[in-house]
């Protein structure tokens, strides 16, 4: 049961074993590399409550009334941006959107100055998407408002990973010991990186399946700076025993950069099609962070098959982002 106080400021959660808001330590969401399993559990738990809100006829609660949430996107985006805006609006925040192309950024304003301006304008939460890795960390150093990373370069996309983990959890009892295979351009993928962190923190085993030119560097060296993952460049071998199959979008630039010979060859070697999916466990689920190139990294049949949870991912994204907005604004009062 979830109830709301009359003044609308507090979300009261029924206690569930092992879940308590006291584990929450974050003021920003920059990546999952500094999350504990308890914090991730808490986010998933609150997302459940938010999903209840989204199921109501009137999808609005007053938890963020009087808070300013600003979305600042330096890259184009459909689902992530809309998802954040809907999440903030459902919590009654005042939402402002800034697209880099139509702002002072085109006049040469630096990221730091832009954030100082947003701070002065009274931002409580800034949702940032940026083409350069590390931009949210830079912003977070100069602003007292919370920064949520909505995707930075090749580095991280923590809210996507959390919604992926949430989606997996709705289909599997636990993440512990699950075999998750991530297929595609893992080198340039922020989705893959954040999922590697989040999934391994939750006890899953991650396999990366990419052509060697699209694999991250240094994975063979033992290092405490990155989780241990299994690498299997052969898709048939990688899929054997998989509980979760995550397919990544293939960017067309990769062909121009000489990383791949041709789309045709990529389809032959790495497309997730029905025959290949049959090598995974029968109850394996298929995921994709979108937007999909149907017929390239994933066949249309697989994209829309019964095992596909791709549309659920999108729905869950709103609930996860509501949970994060709630936790961040709530933590400031403490």
């Amino acid at each position, binding site marked *: 049961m979830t109830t709301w106080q009359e003044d609308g400021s507090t979300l009261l959660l029924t206690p569930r074993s092992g879940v308590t808001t006291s584990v929450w330590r974050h003021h920003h969401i920059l990546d999952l590399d500094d999350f504990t399993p308890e914090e991730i559990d808490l986010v998933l738990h609150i997302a459940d409550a938010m999903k209840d809100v989204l199921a109501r006829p009137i999808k609005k609660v007053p938890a963020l009334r009087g808070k300013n949430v600003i979305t600042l996107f330096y890259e184009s985006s459909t689902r992530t941006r809309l998802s954040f805006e809907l999440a903030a609006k459902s919590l009654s925040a005042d939402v402002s959107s800034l697209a880099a192309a139509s702002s002072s950024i085109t006049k040469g304003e630096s990221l730091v100055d832009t954030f100082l301006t947003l701070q002065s304008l009274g931002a409580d939460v800034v949702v940032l998407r940026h083409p350069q890795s590390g931009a949210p960390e830079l912003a977070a150093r100069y602003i007292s408002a919370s920064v949520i990373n909505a995707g930075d370069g090749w580095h991280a996309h923590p809210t996507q990973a959390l919604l992926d983990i949430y989606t997996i959890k709705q289909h599997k009892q636990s993440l512990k010991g699950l075999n998750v295979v991530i297929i595609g351009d893992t080198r340039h993928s922020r989705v893959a990186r954040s999922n590697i962190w989040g999934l391994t923190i939750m006890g899953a085993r991650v396999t990366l399946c990419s052509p060697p030119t699209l694999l991250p560097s*240094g994975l063979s060296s033992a290092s405490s700076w990155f989780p241990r993952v299994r690498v299997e460049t052969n898709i048939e071998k990688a899929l054997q025993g998989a509980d979760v199959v995550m397919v990544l979008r293939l960017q067309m630039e990769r062909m121009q950069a000489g990383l791949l010979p041709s789309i045709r060859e990529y389809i032959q070697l790495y497309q997730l099609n029905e025959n290949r999916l049959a090598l995974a466990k029968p109850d394996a689920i298929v995921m994709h962070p979108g937007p999909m190139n149907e017929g390239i990294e994933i066949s249309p049949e697989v994209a829309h098959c019964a095992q596909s949870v791709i549309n659920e991912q999108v729905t869950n994204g709103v609930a996860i982002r509501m949970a994060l907005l709630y936790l961040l604004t709530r933590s400031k009062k403490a």
Partner: protein
Amino acid sequence: MKSIFISDAHIIDPSQGIDSPGNLLLEGEKIVWSGTGKPERIPDEASIIKANNLILCPGFIDLHCHLREPGYEDKETIATGTMAAARGGFTTVCCMPNTNPPIDNRSVVDYIKNKASTEGVIRVLPIGCITRERKGDALADMGELDSAGVVAFSDDGNSVMNSRILRQAMEYSRLFDLPIIEHCEDSLLAQGGQVNEGIIATRLGLPGIPVAAEESIVARDILLAELTGAKLHIAHVSTRGSVELIRQAKQKGIRVTAEVTPHHLTLTEEKVLGYDTSAKVNPPLRTAEDVKALIKGLAENVIDAIATDHAPHTRVDKQCEFATAPFGISMLETALGILMGLVHDGKLDLPLIISKLTREPAAIIGNRAWNLGTLKTGAFADVILIDPEKAWIVDPERFASKGKNTPLAGVRLKGKVIATIYRGNLVYKDSSLKIE
């Protein structure tokens, strides 16, 4: 004529193999006497410095720094850069030609020399371009640059990627017997790279620069040096593989020398975690294994010299997204302090480090650096005093350099320059030093 008598010092002069207590008399701009007792005559007006066992050695020579003038005076000027050098114990710096305009003709050499003589506090020796405008496709007027007084040729910041042009430059350089200094980096292999390629790059989601980008050019350049008989000097060696290539080349008798920076000798790639742009440098900070090989290479004389690659940038330049920030560390004022860490840890001894900052760089630019890097009688009175035990905290706000870009801010270093004397003039002194 003014003179300075320094007594009770511990003199280290690798050019004469001296590592013992002693005294030194400077008169005018020359060293006139050194020994354990007293000279026959100390001028009445001489300043007396009781060194109380401080290290006394020749002023350091930096083979590789960026003074940014002309063109980028917001980053550094000859006035601020040479003051930073003096504070770091350097009495001679060789400045790289990636200025604007670049040092590819006599007028820029003259401009820098003129500025240095009027505004600089120490000696500035310009390095001329190998190719016109550093573009890599046509030779600069190397003869004109030579007669204008450059000490070496380099397109620093870039390798000369066209092997035919580099071969021709090397052949032509034999007219002057000045070294060709190569920044070894295959620009296509390194394209877009921000940090060392490996797990740290993967964690940060940044494109990596593979060690092969450096080593393949080191190998090519060594082959071209063998082919042409030119003097090749490899700038800022950063990888274990490069050390091995240089070792083999020296064994074969090829005329190659090499330098390493204080940061590559002491820092590793983990410094960039958190997207710290002050640790973004080219070549990138590498792994602990590379650092170990560089120290070993230095100790075994595979690497000849230590050079700072002092690369000052403004705050705005560095206070930005990691990939947007320029490469470079402001190093002149922290070089000795960070190198002393290697001495205190027992990894290298102090006479070796002093040799790599005095005698060895002087030998590399030998033709134009006569009388430098030594305390021999008759040499220029370029001397410094060092307190190897004095601890201090790096505060970039107190740098003389305009470049506050250092990954060492707030770090406690042990070992400090106490006084810098250039041509008989005290150009820098620590507040602790007393002069009678």
